[in-house]
């Protein structure tokens, strides 16, 4: 992100104080649910369902987490999610990069139509696709394998990935590759040696987006998996079914679900934000 030497000058101390209060209120609203989920997960049952609501447990306990991993084998769905999300990221990036390159570097017949097709892809309600897809997956023999999810998630992340990568590629001056090609490199070499390294930040950002989307998805996950390969949101939802109102363990499951996403996001956020906003801002 290009740092501005001086962001908006903070004129008066009054305005500064007001904006501080507003920001604090806003952050409290955005973050409180996470705080509350965490606090709930470390409360013993006696305090959870007691007469008064406590905002910090008198006797914090990690019992819920222990039970979750020992009795409900929460590691397994985490591993399943990791496999699905990592494979999706790899495939989606490769396929989208090729398409984005084509859209940004060639002017060809049907280009507009194809771009429209990709962009409209995400407008179809998930539920519209779900049932026909179930039949298709079964016919292909990949239902209840990670492949079914990888294929679906790849498709749903392609349009946005193409959009992100296309925006970024269009900003790279073509003269760079042209110079390399004049020097005798072919298009593929120019792409690998010149464009790819320069695109790295944007590729990482797009990858993080794809990974998080796949990690979080529930609707397809619940339809296309079974006991053996269910992903983490599905496991979490099942837990709600099994445990009913055992909020201690449910919230512990929630915290475990979000931690990998947070770690991922913090590492990639700077580049992800650049990539995400580049298209819309320069548009």
């Amino acid at each position, binding site marked *: 992100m290009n740092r*501005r030497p*001086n962001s*908006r000058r*903070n004129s008066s101390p009054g305005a500064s104080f007001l*904006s501080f209060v507003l*920001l604090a209120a*806003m*952050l409290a609203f*955005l*973050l409180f*649910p*996470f705080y509350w989920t965490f606090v*709930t997960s470390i409360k013993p049952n006696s305090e*959870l369902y007691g007469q008064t*609501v406590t905002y910090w447990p008198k006797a914090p306990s990690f019992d819920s987490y222990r039970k979750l991993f020992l009795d409900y084998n929460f590691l397994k769905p985490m591993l399943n999610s990791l496999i699905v999300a990592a494979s999706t990221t790899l495939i989606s990036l*490769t*396929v989208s990069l*090729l*398409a984005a390159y*084509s*859209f940004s570097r*060639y002017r*060809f017949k*049907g280009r507009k139509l*194809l771009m429209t*097709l990709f962009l409209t*892809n*995400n407008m179809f*309600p998930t*539920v*519209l*696709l779900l*049932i026909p*897809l179930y*039949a*298709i997956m079964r016919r292909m023999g990949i239902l209840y394998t990670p492949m079914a999810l990888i294929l679906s998630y*790849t*498709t749903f992340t*392609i349009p946005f990935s193409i959009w992100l990568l296309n925006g970024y590629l*269009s900003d790279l001056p073509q003269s760079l590759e042209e110079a390399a090609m004049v020097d005798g490199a072919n*298009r593929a070499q120019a792409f690998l040696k010149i464009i790819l390294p320069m695109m790295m930040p944007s590729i990482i950002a797009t990858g993080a987006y794809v990974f*998080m989307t796949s990690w979080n998805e529930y609707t397809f996950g619940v339809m296309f998996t079974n006991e053996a390969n269910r992903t983490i*949101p599905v496991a*979490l*939802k099942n837990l709600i079914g099994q445990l009913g109102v055992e*909020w201690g363990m*449910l919230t512990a499951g*929630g915290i475990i*679900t*979000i931690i990998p996403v947070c770690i991922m*996001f913090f590492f990639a*956020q700077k580049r992800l*934000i650049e990539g*995400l*906003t580049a*298209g*819309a*801002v*320069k*548009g």
Partner: protein
Amino acid sequence: MRKKTNPWPYILVAPALITVALVVFTPVVNAILMSFQNYDLRRPSARGFVGLKNYLEAIADPLFIQALGKTIVWVGVGVGFQFVFGFILAILLNRKFVGRGIVRSISLIPWVTPGVLIGLMWRWIYDGSYGVLNDLLMKLGIIDTMIPFLARQETAFPAVILTIIWQGIPFFALMILAGLQGIPDELYDAADVDGANGFQKLFRITIPSLKNVIFVTTLLRIIWVANSVDVIYNLTEGGPAYATQTLSVYVFNKGNSLNLGYAATMSIFLTLLLSSVAVVYLRNIFRNQEGK
């Protein structure tokens, strides 16, 4: 010699196109066909083409009309407030202060939170017996008895809308913040010289410069929010008594109850509705690309 068409652009697009064709367009065609059929898995023997029957049924279905209205409120109020609060947050985050980077990334977390978890967290917050929202409102003296927010007709819909607003603020803030950082300082300096006040700067410089960002982000959010099922589904499943049943949740519920033909018909209505939004969006994208 005739100029040969370069095959490369097509070859490069092919893998993406094949995947999308398989996973999106085949099912869509399938769904369109389903919408003209009597297709109810509970009565497989009655399956067959019935022309526009499902469509006529939908128009006369009070629940469909209600869901349509709910969708408009859900999207209008939801995206509207996401924009307003996102805008305020972006302006606040654009000011210089210690720890800005960390605050900025932390405030984005709701956006990367899975829908199932959002449902779980907020259900617990809204809980009628041990919920923290009830406790806070009681302590503040706003209410004197516990309210089961998600179980009551009048409070359930506002509650799910508040949740989607919470979820969507960060994305708006993120995009608008990027837009803000693209506005050259000179514009504000010039305005200062001319003696403009804060409001004049906001309405004459900031908002006009952000027009494109706001436009694109709003359209994207409209499509996402209209299609979103998991937040409402994990909070209320569309109840109580259909009070939170938007069109996409209605479709999901109908699909669950195995009336696939009717579910497909309603999802086509939803798709048509969103197409108008998408057309505006696409026009804008292509206009900008050609302008380059």
